[in-house]
């Protein structure tokens, strides 16, 4: 069979039209349509902010019970495992001493009570988060409201974020965390082996109109609010009280502020 150029072009053109057209039809028929498209909304009770932040009044958190209560409030809600050894520790909110919390603001002659006092630490939800810059899969990202969160579905466990974060706010699941969760909260997922996890500023609670669990359990020692709203409670505290942040010299602009030696209370 011989074919001239003209015939060949005709057949080639026709098969291209059939191929592309056919795939479009199959695509349309293959998916059951929904007609009037579904929508996604924020939910009626969600509380919003331009940039979430928190002030922790260190002097108001006094006894060991206070620390335990606050940490437990967070860790029990979010199914944070307790592996029982420091090497594998998973922490969303934890404590450390002054020297390691504010390494650039230390001096040998400072007030002993503060020198030895534990400070509550959590993710700083930085304005310029180093962890987000290094994440190769965009599993970690900063929401428009300033909260730095993780999409565990995307986390490949490379731990770049752990190396990048100057505050040690991230933990890796070296083992399956499920057997190490004392009491599972059935309303919140767990994590799996091989992903990094961290504090979420309780985004799931903000979406329901509740504040972060730690702040709720702190009896007023931790105040959260919108840093971009000059009339918010947190801005009033920041305007009238002297506060410091962890490692501000690194330029990540943390959103967690600490009141040290507040006027109306003693440590």
């Amino acid at each position, binding site marked *: 069979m011989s074919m001239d150029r003209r015939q060949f072009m005709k057949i080639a053109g026709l098969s291209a039209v059939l191929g592309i057209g056919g795939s479009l039809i199959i695509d349309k028929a293959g*998916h*059951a*349509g*929904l*007609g*009037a*498209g*579904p*929508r*996604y*909304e*924020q*939910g*009626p009770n*969600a509380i919003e902010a331009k940039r979430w932040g928190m002030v922790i009044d260190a002097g108001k958190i006094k006894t060991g019970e206070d620390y335990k209560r606050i940490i437990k409030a967070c860790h029990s809600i979010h199914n944070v495992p307790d592996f029982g050894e420091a090497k594998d520790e998973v922490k969303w909110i934890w404590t450390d001493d002054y020297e390691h919390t504010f390494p650039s603001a230390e001096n040998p002659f400072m007030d002993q009570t503060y020198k030895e006092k534990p400070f509550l630490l959590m993710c700083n939800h930085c304005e310029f988060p180093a962890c987000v810059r290094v994440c190769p899969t965009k599993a970690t*990202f900063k*929401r*428009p*409201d300033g909260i730095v*969160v993780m*999409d*565990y*579905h995307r986390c490949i466990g490379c731990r770049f974020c752990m190396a990048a974060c100057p505050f040690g706010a991230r933990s890796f699941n070296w083992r399956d965390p499920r057997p190490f969760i004392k009491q*599972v909260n*059935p*309303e*919140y*997922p*767990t*994590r*799996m082996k091989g992903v990094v996890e961290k504090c979420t500023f309780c*985004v*799931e609670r903000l*979406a329901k109109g509740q504040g972060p669990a730690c702040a709720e359990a702190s009896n007023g020692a931790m105040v959260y609010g919108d840093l971009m709203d000059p009339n918010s409670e947190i801005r009033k505290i920041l305007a009238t009280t002297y506060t410091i942040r962890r490692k501000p010299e690194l330029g990540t602009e943390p959103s967690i502020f600490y009141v040290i030696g507040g006027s109306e209370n003693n440590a």
Partner: protein
Amino acid sequence: MYNGGKIILGLAVFAGLVTFPFLYNIGQADRQPDLKLDTPVIRQMAVKHCVEPKAFMRAEHMQLLNDWRNEALRQGNREYVSSTGEKYNISLQNTCLHCHSNKKKFCDECHNYMAVHPYCFDCHLQPKENVQ
């Protein structure tokens, strides 16, 4: 043909082995997945319906779950307004599995039949009655 007999015998044995699973099961109907909608919450519904029509859910639930995840987690939209205008909280654990609390007889039934292994429940908790 050298060794023709051996070659033909060998080919016959090979063909027999390869087609054995098909010949063995010939005429037998495969066990179809048998989904159960028999859960306390579904039993109490006056009109039994999912967030979207059955045909759509059957074919596209994986895409819907994907969209739910991205909207809730990355966009902060935790409420789904369905094509019929009903509002649902976006949550696999608290919405999907609230009704479908029989994961073994619902999710797993089809997934096992199709030999797909979604990793949802590596993190998301299964309903209580299915935890061993």
